[in-house]
């Protein structure tokens, strides 16, 4: 618990500031929702001037006033992936790559705590922070919308929060593994950032051109479909399981690699 408490403490500033940013942005969007809703026809007419495929690339697959489309367009399709990637990189690379570089890692590892157990405390802290951020992303928007008289289905939004959490964990797991194998924060950030950007580009391309649709499943965005989840109640069990498997495999792989590898700064 000592190591876990320190991990949480070290995450505190990052977690608070990112959570506040997400909640504040969600609140602004929530305040805007009544305006969007009252101008639904006008908005729809305007949106129809764009190709459907183009709109789909940015998550707009229905009326903007639909709670699911609204959440996907303004939160899930861009801000959440950015925040989740940033948090996963900062948290997933800290315990090994960054702390080895700054000379801190030697201190806890000179105590009877095993390497795997030490890394597990960091992974647990990652999960706690990512859960907090996912909750902030959902609640900031939901609560403000509710305060303006637009009560969205809480179950749908909660499920979207769980999917957003799983999405973030699926980035954090492999990030932690890369951090342990490369022992470099910079290299890890470069690889993860490149892959995430690449997956987003693949998703956009596959939405615009159906000729490329077959490649869509390699993109995380293809499995992060919050619109259907909120508006139609379709729980993406397979996508959730896929994210969970990637996250757990990354974290377990990181723990194994950390136990076996040399620690030379």
């Amino acid at each position, binding site marked *: 618990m*000592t*190591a876990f408490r*320190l991990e949480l403490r*070290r995450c505190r500033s990052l977690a608070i500031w990112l959570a506040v940013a997400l909640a504040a942005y969600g609140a602004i969007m929530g305040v805007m929702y009544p305006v969007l809703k009252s101008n639904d026809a006008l908005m729809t007419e305007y949106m129809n001037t764009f190709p459907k495929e183009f709109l789909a690339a940015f998550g707009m697959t229905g009326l903007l006033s639909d709670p699911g489309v609204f959440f996907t367009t303004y939160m899930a399709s861009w801000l959440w992936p950015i925040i989740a990637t940033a948090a996963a990189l900062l948290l997933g690379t800290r315990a090994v790559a960054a*702390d080895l570089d*700054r*000379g*801190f*890692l*030697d*201190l*806890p*590892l*000179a*105590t*009877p*705590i*095993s*390497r795997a157990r030490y890394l597990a405390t960091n992974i647990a802290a990652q999960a706690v922070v990512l859960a907090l951020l996912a909750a902030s992303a959902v609640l900031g928007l939901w609560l403000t919308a509710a305060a303006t008289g637009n009560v969205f289905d809480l179950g749908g939004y909660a499920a979207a929060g769980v999917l957003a959490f799983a999405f973030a964990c699926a980035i954090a797991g492999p990030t932690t593994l890369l951090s342990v194998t490369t022992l470099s924060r910079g290299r890890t950030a470069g690889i993860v950032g490149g892959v995430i950007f690449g997956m987003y580009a693949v998703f956009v391309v596959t939405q615009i051109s159906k000729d490329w649709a077959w490649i869509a499943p390699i993109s995380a965005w293809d499995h992060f479909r919050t619109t259907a989840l909120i508006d139609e109640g379709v729980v993406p069990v397979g996508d959730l399981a896929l994210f969970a498997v990637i996250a757990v495999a990354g974290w377990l792989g990181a723990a194994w690699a950390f136990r*076996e*590898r*040399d*620690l*030379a700064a």
Partner: protein
Amino acid sequence: MTGPVIEAVGLTKRYGRQRGVDDVAFEVVEGEAFGFLGPNGAGKTTTIRLLLGYLRASGGTARVFGQDAFRDAPAIHGRVSYLGSDPGFLGELTGAEQLEYLARLRGLARRAWRPLTERLELDPTIRIKRLSRGNRQKIGVVAAFMGHEPLLVLDEPSSGLDPLMQREFLALCAEARADGRTVFLSSHNLIEVERACDRVAIIRDGRIVEVSAVGDLMGSHWRSINLVLAAPPPPEAFELPNVEVVAMTGREVHLMVRGDVNALLAQIATHRVEDIAITTPDVEDLFLRLYRDDAPGAASRSTEEVPA
């Protein structure tokens, strides 16, 4: 504990084509203070990281308390207190928070660090990022000595400490030994090792070049002789077996002699001597000599001055 506390046999570490350490072998027995001397880059820290299980050996074995240093690291760490050369304490914590964190991970009592922070005049309430290098090093010294683990592994522990605190550090080492604890002290501070240790291993270019009692290394092997003669001697005057001419400047001659001194004394007697001083070389003389043995131009060292 019947066997050695630390046992390195043929210990080798390579980083690809780069050398780490090669065929390192030594033993540290219970209750002794063992010095580990070498210049920067000689392989001291690599050896310590192998002993603590941070690195996996490319060859040979490292055993601590009879257990494999890499595989059994957590069990070994329960009996080891370690202080690295440049511990990366967390700047956002106070000294007290950092020490309490380490104390808890080591299963020590709450505030086990308190007596030592008072003794070393360290204010534990200040955030570490606001501390000087010397005060940060004090936190490391407190962390190393606040427990009662039977083995202390100290990697250049007194760098950054002022002379008073270095003396306090040596006193802590002596107290640890009096408690029956074993001390493994890596340093390039020769005086520190001379004062704190019983035996010393000297490492150069990743290889152990000598393991000996500190007293043997400094005393029985070599004598330093400073002569002032009435007239400058011929250059070849002291070219004798076991004699090394360290410096010859006019009438002043600095010699090092090992083993039988009679031939040298006979040679000295052929000159008119105005002054003579025969001393035990300090460990620094010894260290420099050992390090120069294979250096390019070693044959011409008779014209070089060896700092005392």
